């Protein structure tokens, strides 16, 4: 089965297009909002301007009020014109953070401004680290290079290099570790602890032991990664992390579809098992059982059409899952398409389309929102998955929308949470269904 998964570009039925990149998405620094919650002993310092700060405070809404473990290092005119020393300024702020919050690690999130003024964060960090006695991890999650969820990718890639090796741990007390009968496996991608537990259990049923997660619940619990370990991603936007793990940590990447939807989860487990020469047991029945429990949602979705405007890189996996649910996908917009990292997901998408007998959707990289809106006007899809900038105006024009951001904050991985994905997807359909008696659909003056 392994050999079948190799990409033969000539045979691929998928079509890719690239537009102008005039689209709406969140700035990648938004990753601090979920990463600071995931990594409990961390502190995130975003080194940028008021623009960055205002984004975080507005996009993250209420979270800001619960004394979050993140802050802005707000650059002032003196910092921009290099009148002040970056090193001294950062030292002052980091010492204050250490005193007030005492974290186990400080993450520095570089922004567009630190890129443009070429602030040498990677150079300053190691010096400051030893001076203040706290590890500092530098990630350049800026809007010049990345979109939204790719922010997590830059942070995890930086963390991958901080994971310990067995040999460096020798002095510490040897924990009694059960050694699996397959090479150690590390999973990467930030998911809520409950989801990490669920996926770990899912693999345990098949006799696959997960040796660690990147990131773990605490920075001090970062997993050991030695040369020759196997790694596998759970999110589609982690290509830099994958590359770092392969090139810098000499691990072997298990390329698999992502565990989103029962189909994706099954394919993900099967792929991991196949690499370890394990025959998966009862997976098919497990998948069937989940599909059966989703029946009520599927009834709402079958033959409905959906249009992904594209802003968080989950689009391919979600589209594949929704096609399996019986939906027709018009277009998959996506900020950035790593055809190598996502190759198995793309293959599964193609296979799903063929099996479901639907046309293969166009994949539009760096979409142009204006042109997309023209296409939406023409196609009149039953559902548009889009950012919040377009959602209300589309609803006012009688088009059902689902905010894409919710998919990044909800629990969507594994068998257990398939229901949650469909809960999100069907919500606008259910809601607008129940409003049918209102007898009008358009809420604008034009058209």
């Amino acid at each position, binding site marked *: 089965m392994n050999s079948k998964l190799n990409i033969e570009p000539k045979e691929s039925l998928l079509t890719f297009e690239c537009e102008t990149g005039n689209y*709406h998405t969140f*700035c990648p620094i938004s990753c601090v909002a979920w990463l600071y919650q995931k990594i409990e002993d961390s502190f995130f310092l975003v080194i940028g301007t008021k623009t960055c700060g205002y*984004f975080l405070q507005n996009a993250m809404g209420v979270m800001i009020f619960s004394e979050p473990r993140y802050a*802005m290092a*707000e650059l002032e005119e003196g910092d921009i014109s290099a009148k002040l020393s970056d090193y001294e300024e950062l030292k002052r702020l980091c010492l204050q953070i250490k005193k007030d919050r005492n974290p186990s690690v400080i993450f520095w999130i570089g922004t567009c401004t630190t890129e*443009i003024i070429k602030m040498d964060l990677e150079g300053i960090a190691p010096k400051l680290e030893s001076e203040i006695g706290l590890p500092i991890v530098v990630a350049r999650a800026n809007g010049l290079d990345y979109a939204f969820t790719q922010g997590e990718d830059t942070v995890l890639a930086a963390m991958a290099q901080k994971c310990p090796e067995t040999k460096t741990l020798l002095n510490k007390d040897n924990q009694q570790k059960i050694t699996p009968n397959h090479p150690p496996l590390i999973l990467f991608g930030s998911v809520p602890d409950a989801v990490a537990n669920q996926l770990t259990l899912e693999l345990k049923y098949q006799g696959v032991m997960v040796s660690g997660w990147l990131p773990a619940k605490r920075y001090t619990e970062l997993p050991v990664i030695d040369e020759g370990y196997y790694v596998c991603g759970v999110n589609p936007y982690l290509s830099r992390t994958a590359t770092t793990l392969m090139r810098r940590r000499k691990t072997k990447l298990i390329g698999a579809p992502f565990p989103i939807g029962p189909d994706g989860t099954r394919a993900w487990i099967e792929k991991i098992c196949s690499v370890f020469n394990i025959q998966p047991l009862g997976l098919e029945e497990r998948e069937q059982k989940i599909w059966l429990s989703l029946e009520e949602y599927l009834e709402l979705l079958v033959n409905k059409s959906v249009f992904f405007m594209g802003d968080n890189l989950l689009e391919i996996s979600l589209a594949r899952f929704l096609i399996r649910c019986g939906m027709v996908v018009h277009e998959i917009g996506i900020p950035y398409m790593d055809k190598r990292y996502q190759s198995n997901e793309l293959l599964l998408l193609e296979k799903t389309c063929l099996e479901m007998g639907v046309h293969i959707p166009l994949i539009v990289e760096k979409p142009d929102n204006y042109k997309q809106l023209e296409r939406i006007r023409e196609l009149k899809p039953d559902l548009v998955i889009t950012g919040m900038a377009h959602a209300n*105006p589309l609803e006012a024009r009688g088009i059902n929308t689902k905010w894409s951001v919710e998919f990044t904050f909800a629990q969507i991985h594994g068998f257990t949470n398939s229901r949650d994905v469909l809960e999100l997807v069907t919500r606008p359909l259910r809601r607008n269904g129940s409003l049918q008696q209102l007898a009008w659909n358009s809420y*604008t003056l034009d058209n």
Partner: protein
Amino acid sequence: MKLAYWMYAGPAHIGTLRVASSFKNVHAIMHAPLGDDYFNVMNSMLERERDFTPVTASVVDRHVLARGSQEKVVSNITRKDSEEQPDLIVLTPTCTSSILQEDLQNFVNRASLESKADVLLADVNHYRVNEFQAADKTLEQIVEFYLLKAIKYNTLSREKSSTPSVNIIGSFCLGFHNQHDISELKKLFRDLDININLILPGTISVNELKNLPKAWFNIVPYRETGLLTAEYLKKEFKMPYISRSPIGVIEIASFIREIQSILNQQGLNTSFEEYIHQQTKFISQSSWFSRSIDCQNLTGKRAVVFGDSTHASAITKILCREMGIHVSWAGTYCKNDAEWFRNEVEGLCDNVVITEDHSLIADLIAKTEPSAIFGTQMERHIGKRLNIPCGVISSPVHIQNFPLSYKPFMGYEGTNQIADLVYNSFTLGMEDHLLELFGGHDTTDALTNTLSAEDQIRWSTEAMQELKKIPGFVRGKIKRNTEKFARERNLLEIKLETMYEAKETVGA
């Protein structure tokens, strides 16, 4: 560098966008990296805007960093020109783009040759001014541009209107209760027999700006934005203006008297005294309400006030002069307006606080322990932590401060709204206090003790821990559903797996 968790006023470009996108048929193009167009999200979510926000980005990416924007900005402007056919395109620099030091003015000059729309570069320094100051500046810039244009083409209306008329300057999107205030002002001017010439920037097209000088005078209801424009119109066209905000019965009376004196100076012989008298005593309920015995309870109660300079000063005056409440301190985050603010509230409160630091305000509130806070959403949260009620009176605000129902702060109806807000904040505080005194509601046990009481099902330690992670407001439901699920399967213990299985099967 400054360690900052939260800010009261946004970055400059937000102010520019708020003004530019409030005009009819004006499009703003931000010179900004990907993701900086979150203004569209704010506008679409907070204002529940039905139309697409007329703001797009000319994206600054790695290529732009290496080679400059070159044709990109110009082609984005001309593209928008042909797609949307706006009257004006405002090129808006952001803090990122301003350090690139590209010659954006040159792009604007080139683009305006090719496009039908006028093209302007917003003239604001991102490291020196905040959202409000930038909004103020942008409004003046646009007004000046179109008045000079009208002078050049000889289309300016210099003739005053035959009957008294007014321009309202500073009605724009994302303002605190702005829509309702404007409706209330319209009503007030109708009552006074004064026509409204223009309301800007909201509701008008830039082509109408040439009619600005027709009005007899201008008003600037919110002093944060509009003063520069009013000053400009005064200097160039000798138009008098009023910058007093008509919030609270006393201030409304002064506001109307200022109008009266302006009109009389321009040759009218009119008196609004009877109107003020009628409205204050019988239309507005607030002055009678303050006199009613219910309000005696508020006498000498201590409050603190914080917000933008317009609202914080107005509320301080109302609390002190109209309701007999003791204001321990009043403050604003509008540092550029500190002197004016100080003069306004001097003598009405014990102390004046000027700061942009919310943690300082939190400390002060904790130290003061007032019975009620009147502030922004930030102070509301501080109040929640300290168990002190808070009435929200100023930006920055959340979506709940964009109410659907009619809730002006200005004019006579506004006085009623404010009286309710103040009164409700205090009574709630009182109620809480009494509940605590008498040991609180004791219904919690009765509510949670329904289903799971009899045949005790054991929860494993891990499952219990997992359950505790679930947010409080759904935890009870999930617990009950999982236990029901276990009972149906004759399980005696709930393990982690049981929880997940319950979720998969019944959605618990």
